[in-house]
């Protein structure tokens, strides 16, 4: 199904591909948060989608309040605020873990799932009460509206920046997890909590840390989304969260490169599906892909660990 006006198939294909890569980068960042938390706690953090929304809203507030005050140029302002959002949402993740998950760590996993769902309802409504139920618009000045023409393709610069930003964050994440001592500790806790504790790793501290890094990345992704689409809504976290979790499972849950791969694949599959198959079914593709992958490769593309029986 082709849209009118875009009559060269190859060009449209690359347009969709770039769009898919940009959105896929966002999915991948959110999926990282899911997969890390799942790795250490075997818990689906259903409130993660709401932390993503929180990042988008906090980003908007900060940009509007002093990002545009003129002390800094737009680019440094965006970068500083980006870092602040990561920290603030990370802090919210820390509080969330303390309040809603830590008391349930020893009880059955279903209780933790319901607690996570309750936290998600709470956060979503808190955001709605604070910012109102309507769409909110990101300030135009901070959005990059330049369109680059590369080899006859019109690609908005924002797409490229978005993709670069998410790739950079993922790369930093990958290096942190695989090359640093703390990263090794996180992997150790994910593999075997008991053994990690015996090796002198403070498991609680690591879990808190994971709950700061994951939501921090999710919040950053929320702000990227706001900058990309320009408008945000209090309940967008649910669908983005579900899709990102889907991406994490597609890549193999608990597996960090898997989450990145899954997110980008999902973004591209969705863009292609919406462009070439049926636009109205856009939101269904993610779940169709998920079902197909789980039927044929239940551990995901890169996963080795099978989810435990409950």
């Amino acid at each position, binding site marked *: 199904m082709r849209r009118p006006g875009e009559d060269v198939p190859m060009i449209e294909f690359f347009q969709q591909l770039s769009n898919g890569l940009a959105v896929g980068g966002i999915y991948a960042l959110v999926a990282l948060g899911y997969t890390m938390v799942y790795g250490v706690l*075997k818990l689906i953090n259903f409130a993660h989608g709401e932390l993503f929304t929180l990042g988008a809203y906090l980003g908007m507030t900060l940009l509007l309040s002093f990002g545009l005050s003129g002390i800094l140029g737009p680019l440094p302002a965006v970068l500083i605020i980006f870092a602040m959002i990561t920290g603030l949402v990370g802090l919210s993740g820390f509080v969330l873990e303390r309040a809603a998950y830590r008391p349930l760590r020893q*009880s059955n996993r279903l*209780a933790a799932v319901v607690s996570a*769902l309750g936290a998600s309802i709470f956060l979503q*409504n808190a955001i709605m009460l604070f910012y109102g139920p309507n769409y909110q618009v990101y300030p135009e000045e901070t959005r990059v509206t330049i369109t680059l023409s590369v080899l006859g393709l019109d690609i908005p610069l924002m797409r490229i920046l978005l993709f670069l930003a998410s790739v950079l964050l993922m790369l930093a994440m990958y290096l942190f997890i695989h090359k640093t001592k703390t990263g090794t500790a996180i992997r150790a806790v994910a593999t075997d909590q008991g053994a990690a504790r015996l090796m002198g790793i403070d498991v609680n501290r690591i879990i808190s840390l994971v709950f700061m890094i994951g939501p921090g990345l999710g919040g950053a992704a929320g702000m990227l989304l706001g900058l990309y689409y320009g408008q945000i809504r209090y309940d967008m976290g649910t669908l983005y969260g579900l899709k990102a979790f*889907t991406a994490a499972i597609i890549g193999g849950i608990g597996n960090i490169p898997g989450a990145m791969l899954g997110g980008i694949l999902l973004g591209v599959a969705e863009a292609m599906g919406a462009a070439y198959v049926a636009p109205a079914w856009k939101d269904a593709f993610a779940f169709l892909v998920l079902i197909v992958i789980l039927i044929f490769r239940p551990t995901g593309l890169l996963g080795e660990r099978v989810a435990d029986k*409950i």
Partner: protein
Amino acid sequence: MIVRRLPKPAGIMGLGALFILMLALPRILGPYWTNLLNDMGIYAILGLSLNIILGHCGLFHMGHAAFYAVGAYVTAILSTRFAVPILWTLPLSGLMSGVFALVVARPIIHLRGDYLLVVTIGIVEIVRIALVNNIFGLTGGSNGLLIINPISIFGFQVFSPAHFYYLIWSIGAVTILLFYLLQNSRFGRALNYIKQDELAAEGCGVNTSHYKLASFVLGAVWAGMIGTIFAAKIETVSPQSFSYSESVLLFAIVILGGAGSIPGVLLGAFLITGLPEIFRELQSYRLLFFGAAMVAMMIFRPQGLIPPGRRFYKVRPYLGRFPCGIAARSGARRGISLSASPGYPAGTDAGADAGKPARGPGDMIEEQA
């Protein structure tokens, strides 16, 4: 053999009083609260049907709204397009929903834990999107379908909240009775076994994937039939009624109340539908408090409000029947060969220690549900 204590006179009188109270409630409460009781009834029955899958069989299923939607839409389509009387669509709704569950659950039934959870969420989203997109040109898109004909039972038209109250809660009573019998049946025990230890269940000859699938289909059939009643009650069947958040509510009803426990699920349904009403004073803050209450309830009672009690089964009548069982082992001790025929005389073992109290260890197998 299930040990059933005979109902005591006090219990019978309590049930009778409850019955009379239930009969009188719509008169006492008035239409607004009766309507709330109707919602509670629908959620209670849906919760009980989900309880088969999630509570008894332990399958993480968060897509129950999809099955419920199939039932409601079957009714709406048949009623608006073909003018079929609504109650006649009830069995068909159940059937279609069951078939849908069979088709959908068959390929994913081997998935475990969280994987199943996410796939079932995916199913509920796909169903909702399909309904919004007016699939097969039948579902009326995002506006849904408007049902014009009321339910009519032998010419009596059901339309006021009180009428629905009696209809819904009689179905509720039948559901409670049937599901009570079911949980103690061979089927119910097999489901519980799968929940406790799937591998051991399989090792003991329980066809696990068969039972898991059966629990899905049974839960879906029931949800589909309630979909019919819901469609008649709400009159406009639209995709918003069957969203992911609806599935979340049903999931919370079962887990908050106590997975696998009928009184627990009933209490869960009362709380989940009642709490937002109680918090009505707080107006737009009510869902905020609702979310916080969910977290708090799980922290203070992670096993649910009324977790299922331990069940006791009398094994004595079975002792002699199985050559490899307890009786045969004790027989072997006495020098009787283990190759005894399956028709090993019952009572041989029981007679040896007739003086023992009936509830001694070994007489009863205790099963934690």
